[in-house]
């Protein structure tokens, strides 16, 4: 009964609830995405794909430390051609469940972003997320597009043109910048439909006996509880700066965390690292906690809470 009240609209797409499986977590396979949908996700985001297949970085690539995860998978993916097949299958599995499908893309140049976008849209995703903020491919691609207003706007405009109004475009921003609100304003000016924030925070874990960073890529992206307040601040600042809907992502692992994101201004909430302790069932728990908290706080609909922390 309570779950029916959690529905939200994101860029005009109805989500049965505001919880979205964040990109890079369990989004590798159609049946896996369907499993997460059955566990309660309102939308699932596929793992980012590129024009050509990528092996990613050698292991170690993903580690759990005391307060979250750190990863440098290096955008391993089967390439857009294989991804389209997987997304088509995922769409067929998700549709009966009412769960939205979000495709995620990345590329090394503005032109390639447009190309991958045009190809991936053929699979019919409900939304398209543009990953301009992976912190783990710096050696190969240089500074992420998300670190520069001009570059972020250029990618946004190119993908929007490729999307040609067929699918709403979310731009995923990086917290590894001095002024995330300025980047948000730039992608809004370039006509993004929404913003996902945040991607992981660059970090490093060193093994004392090996006397070297554990990740093969040396540095990686932090996620999980450690980054949650940082993510809330980013969403808060973006909400102040732009009128676009925001998918708030970063260390959400409870109903309390999710509602905090929404009060900061998020329309929907990404869940990623929280999967590591409980598995996909974490979605059901967070939804139950949200419903209980909303009753306690006197809210009937999710949107009533959106942005209330701004005064």
């Amino acid at each position: 009964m309570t779950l029916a009240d959690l529905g939200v609209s994101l860029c005009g797409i109805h989500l049965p609830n505001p919880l979205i499986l964040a990109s890079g977590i369990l989004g590798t396979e159609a049946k896996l995405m369907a499993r997460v949908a059955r566990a309660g996700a309102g939308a699932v985001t596929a793992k980012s794909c590129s024009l050509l297949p990528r092996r990613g970085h050698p292991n170690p690539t993903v580690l759990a430390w005391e307060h979250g995860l750190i990863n440098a998978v290096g955008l391993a993916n089967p390439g857009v051609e294989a991804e389209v097949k997987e997304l088509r299958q995922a769409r067929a599995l998700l549709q009966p469940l009412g769960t939205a499908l979000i495709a995620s893309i990345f590329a090394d140049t503005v032109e390639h972003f447009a190309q991958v976008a045009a190809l991936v849209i053929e699979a019919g995703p409900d939304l398209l997320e543009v990953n301009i903020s992976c912190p783990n491919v710096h050696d190969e691609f240089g500074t992420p597009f998300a670190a520069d207003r001009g570059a972020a706007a250029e990618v946004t405009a190119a993908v929007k043109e490729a999307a040609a109004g067929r699918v709403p475009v979310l731009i995923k921003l990086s917290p590894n910048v001095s002024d995330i609100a300025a980047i948000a304003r730039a992608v809004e000016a370039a006509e993004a439909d929404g913003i996902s924030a945040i991607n992981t925070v660059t970090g490093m874990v060193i093994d004392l006996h090996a006397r070297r960073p554990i990740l093969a890529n040396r540095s990686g992206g932090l996620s999980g509880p450690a980054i949650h307040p940082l993510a809330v601040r980013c969403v808060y600042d973006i909400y102040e700066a732009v009128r676009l809907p925001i998918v708030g992502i970063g260390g959400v692992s409870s109903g309390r965390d999710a509602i905090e994101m929404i009060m900061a201004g998020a329309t929907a909430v990404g869940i990623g690292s929280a999967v590591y302790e409980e598995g996909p069932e974490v979605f059901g728990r967070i939804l139950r906690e949200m419903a209980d908290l909303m009753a306690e706080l006197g809210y009937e609909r999710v949107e009533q809470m959106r942005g209330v922390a701004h005064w």
Partner: protein
Amino acid sequence: MKPSLPQVARIVQIVDESPRVRTLVFDLSMAADPGQFVMAWLPGVDEKPFSLMRAQPVTLTIARVGPFSSAVHRLGVGDRLWLRGPLGQPFILPPIEAGQPPAGGTNGEALLLVAGGCGVAPLHFLAERARAQGWEVWVVIGAQTAADVILANRFAALGAQVRIATEDGSRGEQGLATDAAERLLHSTRFRMVYACGPEPMLEAVEGLAQRYRLPAQLSYERYMRCGFGVCGSCSRDGWLVCRDGPVRQVEIQREER
């Protein structure tokens, strides 16, 4: 389940099992069950999953198949490897129905273990536990040639019945492990079938278990990254080998009426 960062472990003993397989014993113990695995990291080389051959002390049986395992084979006593785990779901022994088993004896029921390649390692760990609980243990070790048969004497030392099947017939019965397993299933009453090895073998064992109306537990292998169910690298049609497995429980399927 709370995964952790890698722990440094020093090799205290090395046993050559065959020309290409060696067992490494570490100065580290873990609270782990048979079928669980660790991610083994060699700084500057790679990190790969290995089923535990024993947890106290941690013991790994590793075949030389690629750059990582070759690098591990170059390590000597005193050298270090970094391990995180235990990870994954273990093999489960059936509940003992007739009370406590007699010390050193059997509880009157038998388990069938079918091992292919390095699949013998976790099954040896399982056999050790099962024998301690008084189970009668039968193990079929499948290999290509006599030189690839490993751990047979160790199983025998545990008091397990050992059958060997080699594809070229150079040791034991000629044929596949599953052929030998089928002969045992025909002549002996088992309570559960356990298997670890190449996927075609697991598929065949699953078929056999269904045919003989036995539950089975099968251990799978996949390329892994996180090892704890987050990255999706090891998904097998939505089933995560690292977190839901590596051991898959197969119930007896109801017969169609």
